[in-house]
C-alpha cells in the first residue's frame, strides 16, 4: 500500500513539475479566465436587465431567477467551468506525448503498477484544476463578486471543480488514446466544449433559454455543476442542488474513468 501511494505520488509529482516548467501554459491558463470575465461581462452586461412578463401582468427579473442582479457574479460559474473543461481536455495529450517519446515504455518496463501511471496523472489534473479555480475565485473576488457561502463554500467549489475536472479528463484520455493525435484531441475537445457550455445553465438562467435549449440543458451534466456553483456563489448552501451536482459528477467520473482506464490498459498491454 505504501509502495502504491509512493508510485502515485511519483507520477503526480512529475506532472505537477512538468506543468510548472511550461510557463506558456501557466500564463494562458491565467489570462484566459481574465479575458472571459472582461469580454462577457462587458458585452452581456444588459443580460441582468432582461425581464420576463408574467401572464397576470408585472415582470420577473434576472434577480428573481438567479438571486443576484450582477451578471458578473452569475457568470463566475461559467468561467470556472470553462477553465475546468479546457484544462481537463489537456489531460490525454500528456499520455500520448509519453507514448510518442518513449517515456511510457520506460515506465512500462519498470515494476510500477499500470494503475498508478493513470491515477497519478488524473490526480495531477485534478490538482492543477483546483489551483486554477482558486485563481479564478480570487479574480472574481477582486472584481467585486461576493461569495454567499463563505469560506466553507469556497472549499466546496474547489472540491467540486477538482472532481468534475477529473471526470472530464477521463473523456480527454479516452479520445487521446483512441486518436493518438494531439491536434485531433484538441479539435474534438473544442467542438464539444463550447456547445455543451452554451447549452447549459452556466451562462444564462434556465428560464431565459429557448425551450429546446432548456431540454438539452436538463440532460447536460454541466448544468448541474453550474447550478451548484451558482448556488454557492449567489445564495449559499442549497443541499439538493449540491447533492445533484455531486451525484452527476460521480456518475460522469465513473463512466469516463472506467472507459479511459480500459483503453489505457489496452494501450499499455503490448
Amino acid at each position, binding site marked *: 500500500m505504501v509502495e502504491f501511494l*509512493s508510485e502515485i505520488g511519483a507520477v503526480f509529482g512529475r506532472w505537477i*513539475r*512538468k506543468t510548472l516548467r511550461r510557463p506558456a501554459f501557466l500564463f494562458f491558463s491565467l489570462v484566459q479566465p481574465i479575458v472571459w470575465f472582461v469580454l462577457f461581462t462587458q458585452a452581456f452586461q444588459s443580460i441582468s436587465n432582461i425581464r420576463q412578463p408574467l401572464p397576470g401582468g408585472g415582470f420577473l427579473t434576472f434577480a428573481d431567477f438567479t438571486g443576484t442582479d450582477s451578471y458578473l457574479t452569475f457568470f463566475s460559474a461559467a468561467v470556472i467551468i470553462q477553465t475546468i473543461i479546457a484544462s481537463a481536455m489537456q489531460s490525454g495529450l500528456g499520455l500520448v506525448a509519453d507514448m510518442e517519446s*518513449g517515456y511510457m515504455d520506460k515506465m*512500462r518496463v519498470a515494476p510500477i503498477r499500470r494503475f498508478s501511471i493513470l491515477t497519478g496523472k488524473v490526480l495531477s489534473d485534478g490538482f492543477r484544476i483546483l489551483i486554477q479555480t482558486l485563481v479564478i475565485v480570487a479574480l472574481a473576488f477582486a472584481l467585486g463578486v461576493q461569495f454567499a457561502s463563505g469560506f466553507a463554500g469556497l472549499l466546496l467549489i474547489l472540491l467540486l471543480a477538482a472532481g468534475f475536472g477529473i471526470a472530464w479528463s477521463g473523456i480527454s484520455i479516452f479520445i487521446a488514446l483512441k486518436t493518438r493525435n494531439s491536434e485531433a484531441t484538441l479539435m474534438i475537445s473544442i467542438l464539444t466544449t463550447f456547445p455543451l457550455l452554451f447549452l447549459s445553465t452556466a451562462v444564462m438562467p434556465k428560464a431565459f433559454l429557448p425551450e429546446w435549449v432548456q431540454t438539452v440543458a436538463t440532460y447536460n451534466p454541466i448544468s448541474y455543476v453550474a447550478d451548484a456553483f451558482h448556488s454557492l456563489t449567489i445564495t449559499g448552501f442549497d443541499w439538493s442542488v449540491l447533492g445533484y451536482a455531486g451525484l452527476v459528477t460521480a456518475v460522469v467520473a465513473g463512466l469516463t474513468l472506467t472507459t479511459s482506464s480500459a483503453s489505457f490498459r489496452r494501450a499499455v498491454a*503490448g
Partner: protein
Amino acid sequence: MNLCGRIVEKAETDETLYQRGVFADRMSRADPIVRVEDLVKVYEPNVRAVDGISFHVDRGEIFGFLGPNGAGKTTTIKVLTTLLRKTSGKAVVDGIDVERDPGAIRRIIGYAAQEVGVDEDLTGTENLRLQCRFYHIPSVEIDGRVRDLVKTVDLEEAADRPARTYSGGMRKRLDLGMALIHRPKLLFLDEPTTGLDPQNRRALWDYIQSLNDSGTTIFLTTQYMEEADRLADRLCIIDHGRIVAEGTPATLKAEIGADVIEVSLKANGNADVRERAKGLLAVLPGVREVRDYEDGLAVYSQSGSTLLPQIVRALDGAGTEIERLSLSVPSLDDVFLRHTGHKLRVEQVKPASRTPYMGFGPRRRA
C-alpha cells in the same frame, strides 16, 4: 572509467565471479539468463516480424543481435522486456516465463530503447530520481545512487539543467543511467549507438564494456557489424525475422575462412552471363566457393590477392566485362552476406573496412 564499478557492485557476487571464471562456459550453458525457443511474433494483419527464432544468452556475456532495420531485433527485445506479447513460442528470462510473471522480470532487467525515453521538461537529476521511485528504491538511498550515476554517465555539469537542453549524446547517457538505476542483472540495449557520432559511439562502447566487466549481462542489438565485432562475446545474425547464423565473431568469420572477392559484372542482370562467369571462377585454382549476391558474385579464397589477376584474365578471356572488383578480409558483413545473400545496409558511418576499386591488389584491409 569508473562506470558502474559502483552501479553493479552488488551484482559482483561470488556467483558471478565464479561464472566468469574457468567454469563459466559449463555453468552458464546449464543456466542461461535468457532462453528463447521458437519465438514468433505476428503483427496484425499478417507481418511475421519474428519468425520462429531460438537462442540463449549466457550469464555474464555481451550477446549481440546483428541485423538490418526491420529484421526483428526490436520486436524480440520488446517481448523479452515484457513490453510486447508474443504470438507463440517460449521466452524465459532468469528462469521466469515472460508472460507468467512480468513484474518479477521488470525488477531485474534494465532497458534502453532506441529512442531515448527521458522527460525533456525535467532535469537529469529529476529524471534519475523519478526512476528511483518507479523502482521502489528506498528514499534514503536515492540521493547517493543519483549522485553516483550522474558521475558515472558523465553528466555532472548538466545534471540540473532540463534534459531539453541536452545534446544527443548526453540524452543517450542519461537514458542509459535511467536504465541502470536499479542495478539490473540483465541490460537490454536496443541499437545503443545509432545516431551517435563516432566519438560518442566509442565512449559508449567503453561504458558498455566496463558495465559488462563488472558483471552485468548485456543483450545488445545493432546494425553495425563493427559494433557487434567489437563488443559481442557471442552473436546471432538476424534477417527477416529469422536467425541465420550464431557464434562468436571469431568463429563466424573463421567459417568464411578466407578472403572475399566481390565481383560485379556489367551484365549482371543477365542470368546466362552470370552463370557462365560463376562456372569460370569456380574452377580457378585456390577458389573455395563462389556465391551469388545481389550485386554479382562473391568469391571465397585463401589467398585473394594472388587470385585477382586470374579472375580478371578468366573473365576477360570469356568476354565478360567487369564493373567492379573488391577484396576484403572476412568481416561480419561477409558473414551476413554469406548467410543472407545480401549486404547489411547502413546509411551512416560506414566503417572503412572495404575499399572498392578498379584494378589489382588489395588496397586496405580491415
